[in-house]
C-alpha cells in the first residue's frame, strides 16, 4: 500500500516520507490517547481497545487516502455510503431477526458498539484526510488540542487540581507532588503540541494536493482569507472555552474552599484571613489515626484538632500571643518533639493517642485538645506523606451540661495573664450587644451559650462575605453590626470579643474541625476545607473549651464528602493493617483483585479477529489468482486473467511504476525475462480502450495466452514465488500498487 504513496509526487523524497510516517504515527498515538481519556470522562460502554483501534485505523486510512487516487471527496462520500449501507444491513437484520424474543435486543447492543466505533473511525479519518489536504487544519488542530487540554485540566475533579484523580493517581504512582505532576503533564502536552506543530509545518511536510504550491503562490489572497477564517474560528473556540471555565470556576471557587484559616505561626501575626475565604482548596491535608476509642467526646460527631490559639488582641484582630501565654499550645513543627506539662487540676479528661500523617506541609503540629507529648514517627512513605508524628492528648470527656454554674478563668493566673485573656475590642458596640443578649443570665457559661445562640440564629454563614474593610480597621464590625454574613473567622472573633466584654476569658482556637462520622477504622482524612477557627472559653477545672457556632442560615460552605477510596488507600499506606499480612495472602481471591482500568480484549477475541482477517485475505487471494477459472463472459475472464498475472507479479515485488503504461510495463518485463512476457496486455488494452473490445479473442485463446504468460513467470526464483504464495495481503498489495493516472 505504501507503494501507492511512494508514487505520489509529494512523497518522492525520503525526508517527505519520513515526515509523513512520523506525523501519521503521532496522530495515531494521539487518537488512541484521546480515546482513552474521553472514555475516562464520559464512559463509552464499549471496550476502549476497540474504539482506540478504530481511531488509530481512521488516522492511518485517512492519511493514506489523502495521497491515494481517492484523495478528493471520495472519503466523505465513501464514509456516508458505508454508513448508510451498514445501517441498512442492520435494518435488514432487524426485519429478519433470528434471535429469540428474550435476546432480540442483542442486535441493538451490537449496533450501539458498531456505531461508536464507526464514529471514531470516521472522525479521525476525516480529520487526518483534511490535515494532509489543507495546511490550515494543522494550526486549527494544535489550537484545539491546547484548548481541550486547558479545559480538561481546569475541569479536573471539579477544578480541584490536586485532589486525587488521574493526575493524582499518577502523582501517587511516580511519587511526586500533585502540582509537580500537573506541571509535568502540562509541559509534556505543550512539548508534544509544539513538536507536532513543528513537524507539521517544516518544509518537507508533504501536501496531498498536487497543485498546492501553485495555489499558494498564485492566490495569496485566498490563502490569507482562509487563514483569517481559521484564526477567527480558533479565537471563537478559545473564547467560548475560556468563558465556560471562568463561569464554572467562579461558582466553584466561591463555594468549595477552606475557611480563611492559614498556617502563619509568628507571634503578633494572625493566620486568619477576613477578606476572603478564597485561595485554598479542598485537597487532602492529613490523615489522623485514632489509636483508641473516644466515646466520651462531648462534641460528637465533630472533633476539634487544635493547631494554635490566638489570644492577643492587637487593636483590630486576634493574633498569636507570646510564649508566656497559651502554654498548652505546642508551637512546634511536625518534625520536632514536644513534651508539655500535665495540668493536674483539669478534670474529666481521658488520654487519647493519635498518629498524624501529613499530606501537605504544615508549619506546626496539631492534635486533639491538650497534647502532652508529640513524638516524631518514621514517615511510612515519603512520596506520599510530608511527615508523621504521634500525639498523646488528654481529651475532654465531660458533658457540656457539666460546665454550667462553673466559674470561668483559672484562679492561678496572675492579674496580667487574666487581663491578657480579657482584653477586648474598644468598640463599645460589642459590649452593648453582649450585655443586651445576656441581660438576665448570670452563669458565665450560659452567657457564652447565649452569645453563640444569637450568632447561630441571626448570622449567615458564607464563604464570600465581600466586606470592603481597609487594612488596620475592624473587620468584624461589618459582620456583626452589618449584614451578618461571614465565615468561621468572623464568628469566632465576634464570640471572643463579646465574651471578653462580659469578663469571660476567651481566645480563638485554630486548626481542624472534622466530622468523625466520615472516619473509617479510626482513620480521619482531613481536607483543607476542614480548617477552622473557633472560640474557646476557659472554664475552671475543665480548661479551654470550644464554644463554636453552627449557623442556621448557610449561604455557601465547603461541605463535601470524604473520598473513601482515597481514605482506604491511605489506610493501607500507613499500616499497620495489611502490611502485617504476608504479601501472598488472598492472591487468588476474586474479591481482592483490583479492577483494571483499561479493558484489553481477550486472546480469544484477538484470535477470532485475526482468523477472520486471514480468511478474508486468503479468499481474496484465491479469487485474484484463480478467479479466471470461474465461468464468466469473455471480457470478464480476460479481466480476471490479467488481474491474476498482475497480482502474482505484485506478490513478488514487481509492479508498474508511476506514469508507466501497461505496454511499457510489458516491454520492461519482456526485456527482463528476455522473452515476450505479459502478452495478455494487448487483448486487455483492447478491452479497455477499443470500441469492439476483446471480441476478437475467444475464451480458449485468452486461456492459452495466460498459460504462456504464467510459464514466463516460472523464471522468477522459486523461493520468491513461494514467498509470494504465502503473502496473505495480495489484494491490498495490488490495490496499493496501482499507479496514479
Amino acid at each position, binding site marked *: 500500500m505504501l507503494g501507492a504513496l511512494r508514487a505520489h509526487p509529494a512523497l518522492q523524497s525520503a525526508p517527505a516520507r519520513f515526515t509523513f510516517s512520523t506525523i501519521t504515527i503521532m496522530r495515531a498515538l494521539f487518537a488512541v490517547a484521546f480515546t482513552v481519556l474521553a472514555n475516562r470522562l464520559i464512559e463509552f460502554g464499549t471496550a476502549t481497545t476497540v474504539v482506540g483501534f478504530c481511531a488509530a485505523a481512521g488516522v492511518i486510512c485517512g492519511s493514506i487516502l489523502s495521497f491515494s487516487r481517492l484523495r478528493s471527496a471520495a472519503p466523505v462520500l465513501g464514509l456516508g455510503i458505508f454508513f448508510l449501507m451498514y445501517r441498512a444491513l442492520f435494518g435488514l437484520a432487524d426485519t429478519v431477526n433470528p434471535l429469540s424474543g*428474550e*435476546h*432480540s435486543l442483542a442486535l441493538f447492543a451490537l449496533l450501539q458498539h458498531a456505531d461508536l466505533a464507526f464514529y471514531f473511525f470516521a472522525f479521525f479519518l476525516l480529520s487526518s484526510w483534511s490535515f494532509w489536504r489543507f495546511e490550515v487544519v494543522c494550526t486549527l488542530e494544535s489550537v484545539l488540542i491546547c484548548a481541550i487540554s486547558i479545559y480538561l485540566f481546569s475541569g479536573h475533579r471539579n477544578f480541584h487540581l490536586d485532589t486525587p484523580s488521574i493526575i493524582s493517581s499518577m502523582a501517587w504512582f511516580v511519587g511526586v507532588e500533585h502540582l509537580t505532576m500537573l506541571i509535568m503533564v502540562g509541559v509534556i502536552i505543550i512539548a508534544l503540541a509544539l513538536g507536532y506543530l513543528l513537524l507539521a509545518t517544516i518544509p518537507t511536510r508533504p501536501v496531498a494536493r498536487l497543485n498546492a504550491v501553485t495555489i499558494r503562490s498564485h492566490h495569496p489572497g485566498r490563502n490569507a482569507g482562509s487563514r483569517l477564517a481559521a484564526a477567527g474560528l480558533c479565537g471563537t473556540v478559545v473564547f467560548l472555552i475560556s468563558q465556560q471555565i471562568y463561569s464554572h470556576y467562579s461558582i466553584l471557587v466561591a463555594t468549595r474552599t477552606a475557611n480563611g484559616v492559614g498556617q502563619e505561626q509568628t507571634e503578633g501575626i494572625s493566620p486568619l484571613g477576613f477578606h476572603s475565604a478564597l485561595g485554598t482548596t479542598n485537597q487532602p491535608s492529613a490523615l489522623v489515626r485514632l489509636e483508641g476509642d473516644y466515646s466520651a467526646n462531648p462534641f460528637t460527631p465533630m472533633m476539634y484538632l487544635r493547631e494554635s490559639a490566638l489570644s492577643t488582641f492587637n487593636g483590630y484582630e486576634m493574633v498569636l500571643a507570646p510564649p508566656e501565654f497559651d502554654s498548652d499550645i505546642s508551637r512546634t513543627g511536625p518534625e520536632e518533639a514536644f513534651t508539655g506539662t500535665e495540668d493536674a487540676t483539669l478534670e474529666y479528661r481521658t488520654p487519647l*493517642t493519635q498518629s498524624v500523617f501529613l499530606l501537605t506541609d504544615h508549619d506546626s503540629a496539631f492534635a486533639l485538645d491538650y497534647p502532652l507529648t508529640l513524638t516524631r514517627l518514621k514517615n511510612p512513605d515519603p512520596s506520599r506523606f510530608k511527615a508523621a508524628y*504521634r500525639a498523646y492528648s488528654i481529651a475532654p470527656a465531660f458533658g457540656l451540661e457539666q460546665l454550667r454554674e462553673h466559674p470561668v478563668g483559672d484562679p492561678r493566673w496572675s492579674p496580667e495573664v487574666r487581663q491578657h485573656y480579657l482584653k477586648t475590642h474598644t468598640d463599645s458596640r460589642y459590649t452593648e450587644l453582649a450585655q443586651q443578649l445576656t441581660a438576665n443570665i448570670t452563669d458565665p457559661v450560659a452567657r457564652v451559650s447565649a452569645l453563640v445562640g444569637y450568632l447561630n440564629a441571626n448570622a449567615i454563614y458564607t464563604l464570600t462575605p465581600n466586606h470592603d474593610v481597609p487594612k488596620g480597621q475592624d473587620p468584624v464590625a461589618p459582620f456583626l453590626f452589618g449584614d451578618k454574613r461571614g465565615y468561621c473567622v468572623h464568628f469566632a472573633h465576634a464570640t471572643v470579643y463579646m465574651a471578653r466584654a462580659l469578663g469571660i476569658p476567651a481566645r480563638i482556637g485554630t486548626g481542624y474541625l472534622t466530622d468523625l462520622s466520615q472516619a473509617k477504622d479510626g482513620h480521619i482524612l482531613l481536607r483543607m476545607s476542614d480548617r477552622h477557627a473557633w472560640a474557646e472559653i476557659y472554664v475552671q477545672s475543665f480548661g479551654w473549651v470550644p464554644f463554636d457556632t453552627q449557623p442556621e442560615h448557610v449561604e455557601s460552605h465547603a461541605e463535601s464528602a470524604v473520598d473513601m477510596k482515597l481514605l482506604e488507600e491511605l489506610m493501607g499506606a500507613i499500616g499497620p493493617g495489611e502490611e502485617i499480612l504476608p504479601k501472598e*495472602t488472598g492472591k487468588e481471591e476474586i474479591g481482592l483483585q483490583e479492577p483494571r482500568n483499561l479493558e484489553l480484549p481477550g486472546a480469544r477475541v484477538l484470535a477470532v479477529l485475526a482468523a477472520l482477517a486471514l480468511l478474508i485475505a486468503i479468499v481474496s487471494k484465491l479469487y485474484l489468482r484463480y478467479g479466471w477459472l470461474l465461468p464468466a463472459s469473455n471480457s470478464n475472464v480476460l479481466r480476471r486473467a490479467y488481474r491474476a498475472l498482475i497480482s502474482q507479479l505484485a506478490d513478488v515485488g514487481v509492479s508498474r511504476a508511476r506514469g508507466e503504461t501497461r505496454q511499457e510495463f510489458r516491454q520492461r518485463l519482456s526485456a527482463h525475462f528476455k522473452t515476450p512476457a505479459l502478452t495478455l496486455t494487448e487483448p486487455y488494452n483492447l478491452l479497455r480502450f477499443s470500441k469492439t473490445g476483446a471480441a476478437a479473442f475467444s475464451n480458449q485463446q485468452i486461456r492459452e495466452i495466460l498459460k504462456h504468460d504464467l510459464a514466463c513467470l516460472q523464471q522468477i526464483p522459486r523461493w520468491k514465488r513461494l514467498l509470494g504464495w504465502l503473502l496473505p495481503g495480495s489484494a491490498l498489495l495490488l490495490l496499493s500498487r496501482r499507479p496514479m493516472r
Partner: protein
Amino acid sequence: MRISFLFLGTCLWLLGSSAVADVHDPLDPFAADQSQSSAQDSDKDKSADELIDEAMVLFQDERPLDARTKLLKALARSPEDYRAHLLLSGYYMEEVGHFRLALKYVLQAQKLFEAKNGKPPYSDFMAQTQHDQILYLLAQARLNLDDYQGSLEVLDQYSRLGYYRDWYPGTRAWVLMKLGRVNEAIKVARMGILSGAEPGRTLNMLGILLSMSDQREDSLKVFKQAVEYELSLGRTGRPATPLNNAGEVYEEIFNEDQAESSWLKSTRLPDGCEHVLPSLNLTMLYLDQGNLLRAKQTIDAFESCVAQYPLRNGEEHRALVHFARGRIALQAGAIDQAVDHFEEALQKQQWFGKIGTSEEDLRAAALISLSQALRAKNNIIATTLFEHTSDWLSAIKDRAANKFRAWWLMRRARQILVENLSNFEDLYVRHTDSMLDYASLGDVARALPRKAFEKRTQIETAHDKRPASKPFYEIYRAANLLEHGDSQAGAGLVRQALSEARDRYDDALRAQALLLELGLARPNSAQYQDIAIEIFKLSRAALRSHGFKLPINFSPPGYPEVEKALADSAFAVDNNRSLPFLVSARIENGATVLRFTSSVPGFGEISVTAAKIEDAVNSFAQQVFSVQLQ
C-alpha cells in the same frame, strides 16, 4: 586515609543512629512507646494471649478502636496467632465494613489455623467452634465482595462439616438468589424458617425470593408473618423492612392502595426512617399519580427524620434522595433543579436499593431522567425570549451541548438496560428491582429497532397476566412505532392505552400517552387544543417540557407586541375559539402586566409584572408551567 574513612563512617553511623533514635516506626506501634503514659505503657510486658483477652473484653465494652490497637500489638508479639487475625477480620467486617481487609485477615487466620490444627474435619469441640467462625467470616467477606460462587463454596464446606448456626440459612439463601438459583434459595429459606433460624431475617428473605419467582400472593403472606414476628419483638423489632417489601409486591400487582398503606406504615415506624426505601417508593407512587405535593412532603419527612441521627452522614441515602427530588422537580417544571439533583444522584454511591437492585438500576434510571431533564431544558430555552443577541447565541450553544448530552445519556442508559440488566429485564412493568419511571419509559423504547423491540415486548405481554400493565406496553410500542414512522399503528395503540389506563393511578401514563397523541395532531387544530388542555390539566410542566404550546385566549386585542411575544413563547394564542385559559395583558406605569385565569377549577390565578415584555413573558411562562410546592 583508610582509617579516617572508617572513622567517618562510624561517626556517620552513630550520628544516624542518634538521629533516628526518637523516630518511631508506625509499622511497629506495638513496641513500647516511651512517650506515652503509664496506662499505655502497661501493655509493654503483656503476652499476646493477654492482649487478645483484653481486646475481647474491649469489644464487649464497645471500644473497638482500643480493641483493634490491642490486637495489632498482639499480632506484633505473635504473628502466627490465628486468633488475633480472626478477631481483626471480625472487627473489619462488623465494625468498619472494610471487606477486603476482613477477607485478607480471615484467609490468614484460616491458613494459620490449619497449620496448627491440620485440615478439617476436627474432632475437638473448640477447634470446630473456631473453624465455624472462620468459615462464617470467609463466606460473609466473599459475599460482600460479590464473589457469590466463592461464598457458596465456603457454605458448602460448612454444611459438609456438619456445622450449623442461625445465620446459615439466610446467608445461603441470599447467595443462591444472587447466583440466580431462586428455587433452591426458597427451599433453603423454608428450611431455615422451620428450624427457627433468625426468623425475621429469613422470613424477609423468603418473601423476597417468592416475589422474585412470581409467587406474589405467597410472598405477601410471608411478609405479613415477618411483620408480625418483628412487631412481637417489641422495641428491638424492625418491621419497617418487611412492610416496605410487602409494599413493593403490592405495587407490582398494581394494588396501589395497599402499597401506599404499607409504605405509610413503614415510614411511621421507629425504624422506618433509617432507610430511604419506603419513602422513595411512596414518592414514586405519588409521582405516578401526579400528586407532586405529597411526593415532596414524603421525601421532606424522610430527611427531617434521618437528621435525628447525627452519627450518620446519610451517604447511603443521598443518591436515592437526589433521584427522588430530581423526579419531583422535573414534573414540577423546576428543570434546573432537576438537572442538579440527577447529576448529584449519578455522582453518589448507592449502598442499597429495592429488592435485588444493583447499582446499574439506579444508574440507568438517573441517566434516563437526566436525559429527559436536559431535553426539557432545551425545549424551555427554545420558548424563551431573548433581548440581546449574545444571550441568544449563548442559548444556541447551551442547546447544542444539552442536545448532545441528552442523546448520549439516553444512549448509555439503553446500553446499560440491554447489556448490563439482562436484556432489558426492566421492561417488565414495575419490575421489583427497577428504579425506572415506567410512565415515561417510552422515551427509552423509542430508538430501539422496531422488530427486535416488538419481539421483546411480545415476550413480556405473553407472560404478564396483570391487566393494568397492558397500557404501559402499548405506550412503549406506540412510541417505538411512531419513531419508526408508523403513525397509524402507533396512534391506534395510544388510543387503546388511553382507554385502558386507570384514573388517578395512571395519570402520569395518561399524560405520556396524550403527549404522543399531541405529536400527531396538526398544530392549532381543535384536536391539538383539546389534547393540550387535557395534558395541562394532568401535568402543568409537561407541555412546555416536551416542546408543545398551551392554547390560550388573549385579551384585550390592543397589545399586538405582547400577543406576538406570547406566541413566540410557550403559548398558542387563538381567539377564534373559547378556551378554558385566558391571558390578559395591560401596561401599567410602563411595565407589562400579564394575568392568567382559568375556568378549570384548581388552577388559580397568576399575575406577573415586569418592565420589559420579554422578561414579563418569560417569567409568566415559568409560573404558568410550573407547580409551586412550598
